[in-house]
Structure formats: structure tokens, C-alpha cells
């Protein structure tokens, strides 16, 4: 990462805005010349971004498997498998992976979504060889101890209780997602349905491993104090010997077009009611993606955003509103989520929300709103780029979901080119009532939560 950005600074200063809300001309993203990639003989792609600001490396392994690859009976398996990836190989006992990594100064984590499973290590540069050995070991030699399976099953169920069963928000989101999709496996909650959590067998895990954990189904990303030469050499030594496999079968089911609004009512103890609208939306690599993201920003990013201003500040129908375009390999959902104050008029909140969306569809956004959204994107982008962790995440996102990590460096320019017409088109595309699922969570009628008398 070049320390001197004098040219960049000069560009930014000459672009100093006269009106506060003008977007800056997007500068070239520094470090583009520090990123190199190669594909190993077994099909695993390796991307290395050299950044020597701190003597550390962020390692991400993106595996193209998520809950969208599941079927009833094994829901939650991709996520459970992610847990089991830390729990022992034929060469190392359960727990050794973590003990060895931590003893060398590293920490790790992983996450599973509907689309991908990503393994993350944050290590001092001196631990790179050990960690690639560990990663190769678990990709090749993973084993499943029956006792460990049972205790890890308990861990995952605890995670489900934390994020769904004891969370009104998580509970409603799960129900809305399961209702929105009638055919596509995006209807499956990533943590899994309870009965399936209880039912996973070791045979399920073995089959899953064979099917999805092929090196040609993985993308390895290294960002930090490592050269491409060093990274490629170690990847070749430890990961290239893992044999290529038959690629996993693609997800064949497509969601048929939704021809009418769906509604879900959940009656659960709640002091603050919840309202969700989830709209069928394009996939991650859709060219309208940037416009949709900027539209979400206009709608709900900050106190001056449209929906916040209208629903929270002016009409006081909600205490919070969020908007998110969920990006996946296949078309997913755009989520609008409102938290309402106790005793709120849920119908009034929904009517006001609908009216606001109708207005955006009919009239689009203002120049000032578009400029604001672009500036919010730019600031967010620079914040992510500022860390090796952020870089690794962005590289992976662009490589895996858009097919080319180089697009990361085009992102500021791409977003800068989006027009008001693009946002209006995006609104018209997304906010169609017959494509939406509406979820409401509130207390059973007449039964508010009880305080101590």
C-alpha cells in the first residue's frame, strides 16, 4: 500500500465541493497494482493483496456453498458443517486447529450465509505457513467424532435460540423469508429448522464434505504483509496437492414469479411491534445492483434519509427503519424493516410506508439525495479499504459474486455513474406490491407484557 498519496490528495482538494452535497470525482483506488492472482492446478483461485501497514495477514477462504444448497431434512447443514470444520481431522484432534493457531498469535472465525461459507483467519505474518498447513489439512482430512457432533449440535441450537427464538426480530425475519420463497431453497433459514438440527447424521456431513468442499469450489484470499510470490508458493505447496473434484451440482430450482402480495402475522410477546416488507429483487451481479444499493441509502441511511425522516421524525410511526438489498447468486429480497413504538398503529405505519414508496416510484429521488447516497457510498468504501480485513472481504465479494475481483477497483466509478433515472427504474423494479411479503409481529391481542405489580 503506497504511503504517499500526494497525487490522490491533490485530486481531492481540487474537487472540493462548492455545494456541500456534490459528490467527489472518484479517485483511483490505491493498491490496485498490489493485487495478483493465480489459479492452482486443482482449480482453486488464489488472490494476494500486499499491504505492509501492519505485520499481519487476513486470510479468507470463500467456499461456494450455503443454505441455498440444502433441502428439507438437512436444513442448517452448511452452517453446521462450518462449525465442524474446526473440530478435528484425521491428523489433528478436535481443538488442535484453534490451539495451534492461537499459540502462534492468530485468531479465526467463519460465517455461513444462504450463498457462501467463508473461513477467516487473522494472523501475524510469521504464522502464514502453519495456517496454510492447517487450512489444507481440514480441507482434505476432516473427520467427524460422534461426541463432538453431539456437543456441536448443542452449540448450534444455542446459537439458534439466541438469534431466533429469543429474538422477535430474528423470528420474524425467518418467517418472512420462509414465506417469500415458495420453491427456491432461499426459503431455508441458514441456522436450520429445529427438527433438522436435532436430526443431522454423520452420513449427512460426509456426503456434504465430498460434494461441496472441493478445492475448485474455493477461492483463497490473502491480504497483508505477504507478497504474491510468497503467497502463491505456500498455496502451491499446501493446497495444490488437494485433488480437484467434480464440481457440485448447481441449484436448479428457480423461484416462479410471485403474482400477489403475501402476508405473515406472528403473535408473540412484544413491547415494540415489528413490520417488515420483503420484495423480490435481482441477483448480486445484476447491473442494477449499484442503483438499488444507492436507493436503499436514500431511503434509510441516516437521519436525513427519506423513510427515517418521514416515518420516525415527522409522523412518529416508527422508532427505526432499515433498508437492505440482499445480494446472492440467485435473486433474493430487498428488506425494509420498521421497529414501532409500543402501542403503535401498525396499519398507519404500513400505509405511510407504502405512500412513501409510491412517491419514489412515481417521482424518483432528488439530485441532492443521489449526491448524498454517492458520498455515503464513497465514505463507506474508504473505511472498508482501510483495513486488511475490509480488503479481504471486498475482494472476495467481488470475485465470488461478480466473477472478477478487479471490479472492486471500478466500484467508485461505477457508483459515480449512476443517475437519478437509474434509481427511479430500480424503485419501479423492486417495489412492486405483487412481489412482496409483508410480516407483522405483535403481542396477541389484549395481552401486553406484564411488569411487576
Amino acid at each position, binding site marked *: 500500500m503506497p504511503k504517499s498519496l500526494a497525487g490522490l490528495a491533490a485530486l481531492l482538494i481540487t474537487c472540493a465541493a462548492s455545494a456541500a452535497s456534490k459528490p*467527489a470525482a472518484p479517485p483511483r483506488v490505491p493498491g490496485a497494482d498490489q493485487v495478483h492472482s493465480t489459479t492452482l492446478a486443482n482449480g482453486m483461485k488464489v488472490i494476494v493483496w500486499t499491504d505492509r501497514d*501492519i505485520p499481519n495477514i487476513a486470510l479468507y477462504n470463500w467456499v461456494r456453498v450455503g443454505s441455498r444448497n440444502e433441502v428439507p431434512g438437512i436444513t442448517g447443514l452448511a452452517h453446521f458443517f462450518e462449525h465442524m470444520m474446526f473440530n478435528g481431522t484425521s491428523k489433528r484432534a*478436535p481443538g488442535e486447529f484453534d490451539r495451534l493457531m492461537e*499459540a502462534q*498469535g*492468530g485468531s479465526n472465525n467463519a460465517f455461513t450465509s444462504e450463498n457462501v461459507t467463508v473461513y477467516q483467519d487473522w494472523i501475524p505474518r510469521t504464522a502464514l505457513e502453519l495456517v496454510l498447513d492447517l487450512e489444507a489439512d481440514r480441507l482434505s482430512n476432516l473427520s467427524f467424532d460422534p461426541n463432538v457432533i453431539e456437543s456441536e449440535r448443542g452449540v448450534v441450537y444455542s446459537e439458534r435460540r439466541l438469534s431466533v427464538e429469543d429474538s*422477535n426480530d*430474528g423470528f420474524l425475519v425467518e418467517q418472512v423469508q420462509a414465506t417469500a420463497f415458495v420453491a427456491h431453497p432461499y426459503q431455508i433459514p441458514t441456522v436450520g429448522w429445529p427438527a433438522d438440527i436435532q436430526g443431522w447424521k454423520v452420513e449427512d456431513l460426509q456426503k456434504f464434505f465430498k460434494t461441496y468442499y472441493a478445492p475448485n469450489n474455493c477461492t483463497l484470499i490473502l491480504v497483508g504483509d505477504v507478497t504474491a510470490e510468497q503467497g502463491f508458493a505456500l498455496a502451491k505447496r499446501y493446497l495444490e496437492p488437494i485433488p480437484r473434484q467434480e464440481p457440485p451440482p448447481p441449484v436448479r430450482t428457480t423461484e416462479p414469479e410471485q403474482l400477489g402480495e403475501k402476508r405473515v402475522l406472528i403473535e408473540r410477546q412484544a413491547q415494540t411491534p415489528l413490520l417488515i416488507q420483503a420484495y423480490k429483487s435481482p441477483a448480486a451481479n445484476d447491473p442494477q445492483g449499484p442503483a438499488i444499493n444507492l436507493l436503499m441509502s436514500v431511503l434509510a441511511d441516516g437521519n436525513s434519509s427519506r423513510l427515517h425522516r418521514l416515518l420516525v421524525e415527522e409522523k412518529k410511526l416508527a422508532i427505526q427503519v432499515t433498508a437492505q438489498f440482499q445480494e446472492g447468486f440467485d435473486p433474493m429480497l430487498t428488506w425494509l424493516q420498521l421497529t414501532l413504538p409500543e402501542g403503535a398503529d401498525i396499519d398507519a405505519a404500513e400505509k405511510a410506508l407504502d405512500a412513501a414508496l409510491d412517491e419514489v416510484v412515481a417521482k424518483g429521488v432528488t439530485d441532492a439525495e443521489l449526491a448524498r447516497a454517492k458520498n455515503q457510498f464513497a465514505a463507506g468504501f474508504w473505511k472498508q479499504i482501510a483495513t486488511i*480485513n475490509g480488503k479481504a*472481504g471486498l475482494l472476495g465479494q467481488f470475485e465470488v459474486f461478480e466473477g472478477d475481483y478487479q471490479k472492486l477497483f471500478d466500484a467508485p466509478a461505477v457508483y459515480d455513474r449512476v443517475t437519478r433515472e437509474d434509481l427511479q427504474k430500480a424503485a419501479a423494479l423492486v417495489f412492486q406490491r405483487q412481489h412482496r411479503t409483508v410480516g407483522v409481529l405483535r403481542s396477541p391481542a389484549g395481552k401486553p407484557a406484564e411488569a411487576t405489580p
Partner: protein
Amino acid sequence: MNRRVLCLALLLACVAPGHGADGPAGVKVPAHQRFVLANGLTIILVPSREVPMIAFSGFVRGGSFADPADKPGVGSLVAGLLDRGAGKRNAYEFADALEGVGGTFSATAGAESISVNGQFLARDRALMIELLADALIRPRFEASEFGAYRGREIEFIKSAKDSDPSQIVGIYGRAALFGSHFYGRPQGGSERSLAAITREDVLAYHKENFGADKATLVFAGDLDPKWMRQALSKAFAGWGRSSAPMRKLSPAPRISGRRVLLVDAPGAAQTYFWIGNVGVDRRYSGRPALDLVNTLYGGRFTSILNTELRIKSGLSYGANSRFVRGTMPGEFAIRSFTQTETTVQALDLTLQTLERLKHDGLGQEMLDSARAYVLGQFPLQLETAAHWAGTLADLEFYGLGKDYIEGYGPALARVDLPETSAVIADAFPRVTDLVMVLIGDAARIREGVAKYGPVTEMKLADPDFVPAAR
């Protein structure tokens, strides 16, 4: 779904820049300028040109310590209202100006100060300074904004009770542990206390506690120190001193004996628990040894706590422990959760791990592993300009020099087993001296938890974080 408890979403940065870092033990505080204006405002400038942003972190001393004793949450409302109308801009105009350039600003009341944080694109530095000065010096506290904001803050507490009990168990814990000591006050207030706060309270707090002499601002990033110094001196010259002197802080005593607060959440699938006692303060001389011991006990994935409660037994998605170290000794607290049916099993295991730590101490291999871990992870916390802004503000607040950062690695290297034994004896509580707070389904767990000590009950839906006085 994340593997680990409290893991943040994919693209949230793991912190920290490092200039001139030459190895895990070689983190160096970046070159910076520090100066104090005539009115007492301390300013620190840290040039760093990695990305075209300027980050700021700062504080105004006071926080919930300066709340009226019977009205916790005043400082929090003050903090939240600073940007909701300031100077010539009303709330919407301020937000529009800030967000219009992609800038961020947040202010939060902690126990001892109100902290401010934010970032702007470097090209908007003039606007950044203007907005920051307005928010700190001349917030409007308009009546309509006050009423609406206070109302929402009350609703957010209810929302957390509905969806995130693990997030709020610590508020109950600190209240139960510290009692009337200011560390026990809910920094954001309670539903009851917020409802009683008036706009006059807010105005009085700002008048008495906000002053240049109580504040420090740190700016780090793509900045020209000369230009910044000039601009900041001009913008903040008009900030007067606070009218009320800082009252003296005093420590809370460690509690002896064990007692239980049971917060009833009928139908909860899990029990969320917080177990603690008073620990040590920020200047604790055993800090390096303490950090290593806590890493091993409850600070990393393979910790003793997590190994017992998650890895070996599958009882929980995660367990951790930490020391909160303020000007005064804060809490040492263990946190975890488990299915309602296994509440007693998990609590017993937790107490056993603490007993084992106190009795057996640590071995050399584990000490070395913890040392490597802390050293290896340290630079990740000091990667970005924003992190340096926060760190330097922190050092300034507690009057710590750069050796707190630069000497940390060498100090860790020197920690030996006798030192770890000393901090285990000195800083970690005995299992017989603990406050245990449980949020869970009382009908199903009250009988089982009675054995831990005298139990007081309340309901999650109660509008305070302490049981009502009877």
C-alpha cells in the same frame, strides 16, 4: 450465521493502522502534535495518508457520573441531542449537511465522559470542523426534538428486551453490583428515569458540564496539521469553560458474599447470565499479566470458560470474561447463556472454572500461548487512523503516556508465572463473592438457582434495571 459469539458482520473492520510497525512487539504510536488552546481544549493531530478520510475521536468529561443521582440518562440524552440541531441548523439541516457529504458523527454517554466519534472525507474538513464545533458548543436542544428523542430512547430499551437480552444483561449486572455507586447507573437511563427527565435537566447538564477545559479532540487521517491547527483554534476559540468543577470520583468496594438477581422473562428459551465483582482500574500495575490471564480464562476462543461451556459440553454458543477498567475499578464479569433446562449445569460449570483458576493458576505453556496470541493480535487493533484517534483519546483521558502502547509488547514478554498468580489472587473474585444476574424464565429456574445465594426477583418488563423498592 457466525461461528463465534459477538462476531461482527463480514465487512466490519478489525481495527487499527500502524505506522513504522516492525513486528508484533514493535507497534509505535504515530507522530502527532498536541496542543492546548487558551480555553483549555486539548487537541491532538495525527497525519496519516492511507485513505482520503479524517477520523475524529474525543470526549467531554462527565458522562453518567455527572447525571443527577435520581435521573440516570440525562447525559445520554444530551449526547444524543448534540447533532439534532446545532448552530444555525435545525435537526434535519444538520443531518442533511453531515450525511450529504457522507460524514458520520456519533456521541455516546459512558460512565465518565461523553465520547464523540466520526469520519469525513478529507476534502470536507472545513465542514467537519464547523459541524463538530456547533454540536459541542451550541446545540439547540429544541423542545420538540428533545421530547421525540427521549420517547424513542425509551422504546429502544423495550426493543432490546424483545430481541436482544444478551445485550442488556450487563446493565442489570452493573446496577446489581455497584448499587448506588455511579458505575451502577444505566448510562442510557431506564424507561422510568428517562420519562422523568425534562428539557431543563438537559440544558443544565450541558451548561454545567460542557466546557473546553473538560474536552479533548483527536483528529487522525489525511490532514495538514498546520491548516487543522489554525482552523480548529478559530472554530473552538469561543468555547467557554464549564461552570461546574469535576467532582472527585471514588471507588466502589468489592462485594462479599454471593447473591442472585433473577429477571423474569417468561417463555425465554435461554437464560442469559452475568456474574461479576469489582475488579481493577485503568492504571492497574499488573495490566500485562492481567490481560494474559484473562485471555486464557475467558478472552479468546480456546479460553477455559469457552472450552467448558461451549467446546466440551455444547451448553452454549459462547462464554467470555472481561475486566472493565475506568478511572475507578470497574467490573470483572463473566457472560454467557444456555438453554433454560441447562441453566444450573452451566452456572455450576462456570463457578467451577473460576474456582479452578483461583486454585490451580496457569502453566508455562499456556502463558506462552496467551502471550503469542495477544502480541499477534495487537497490531490489528491499531490499523486505521480511526483506531489511532480513539486510542490517543483514550490515553489522554486516563493520563497515560505512549509507553502504555509502545511498552506493552516488552511488558508482555516479561510476564512470568508468579506474576500471573499474583493477579489471579488480587484481581479475580472468589466464587464466594459474586453478584449473579440471570435473565430467564423464572418459573422454570428459580428453584434451581436458589442454592447460589439469596435471590431477588423482578420482571424484564419492569421499567427499571433494579427491583422496585418495597
